[in-house]
């Protein structure tokens, strides 16, 4: 990757049920990492994520328990409506880091949400994060997608 060239992640979709999945990492947010380091405290090791890009979601989501593994505390309570739900329910939100491409980290709020797709997906990347990327291209005919920062 040269100077001025955006990181591009191109992935083949394994099957149509899987959707656009990116392997990423969940970490503490950068402000907390700096706070911990400045006090000589250990920064928790990032957790591997199998994240589905979900353009229908306007907020990122992680399965319950991941934030606790990073010793994160909830810093917001948000009204969340899931598919099939008739009303919004209050849920905790955690300020987390989504590490993409192995190099870029995005601090966002993510809510805890049961993700039961049965394919190991443990996070959803919503439009709040996608809005900070340059490009998301879903190429259904060629079973692939492209993300560009």
């Amino acid at each position: 990757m040269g100077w001025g060239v955006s990181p591009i992640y191109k992935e083949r979709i394994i099957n149509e049920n899987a959707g656009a999945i990116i392997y990423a990492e969940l970490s503490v947010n950068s402000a907390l990492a700096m706070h911990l380091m400045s006090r000589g405290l250990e920064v928790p090791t990032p957790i591997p994520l199998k994240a589905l890009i979900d353009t229908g979601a306007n907020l990122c989501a992680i399965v319950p328990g991941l934030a606790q593994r990073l010793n994160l505390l909830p810093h917001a309570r948000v009204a969340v409506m899931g598919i099939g739900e008739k009303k919004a329910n209050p849920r905790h939100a955690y300020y987390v880091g989504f590490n993409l491409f192995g190099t870029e980290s995005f601090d966002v709020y993510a809510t805890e949400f049961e993700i039961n797709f049965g394919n190991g997906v443990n996070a959803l990347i919503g439009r709040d994060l996608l809005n900070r990327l340059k490009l998301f291209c879903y190429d259904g005919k060629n079973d692939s997608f492209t993300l560009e920062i």
Partner: protein
Amino acid sequence: MVKEARGKYALIYGESLVGVFPSLKESFVAGYSELGNVPFLVKEINEEDPIYFVG
């Protein structure tokens, strides 16, 4: 307050407003710096709380 601060972020601890910041990140930097890693609240200032759609 909402009119002047719409779109900014309120840092709240307990019942107290600690400060208003232009970005989420600046709110958290201030929160960890001034309060430590405690369950403070950071909330965007708007007339109504948004509903988020997930899944």
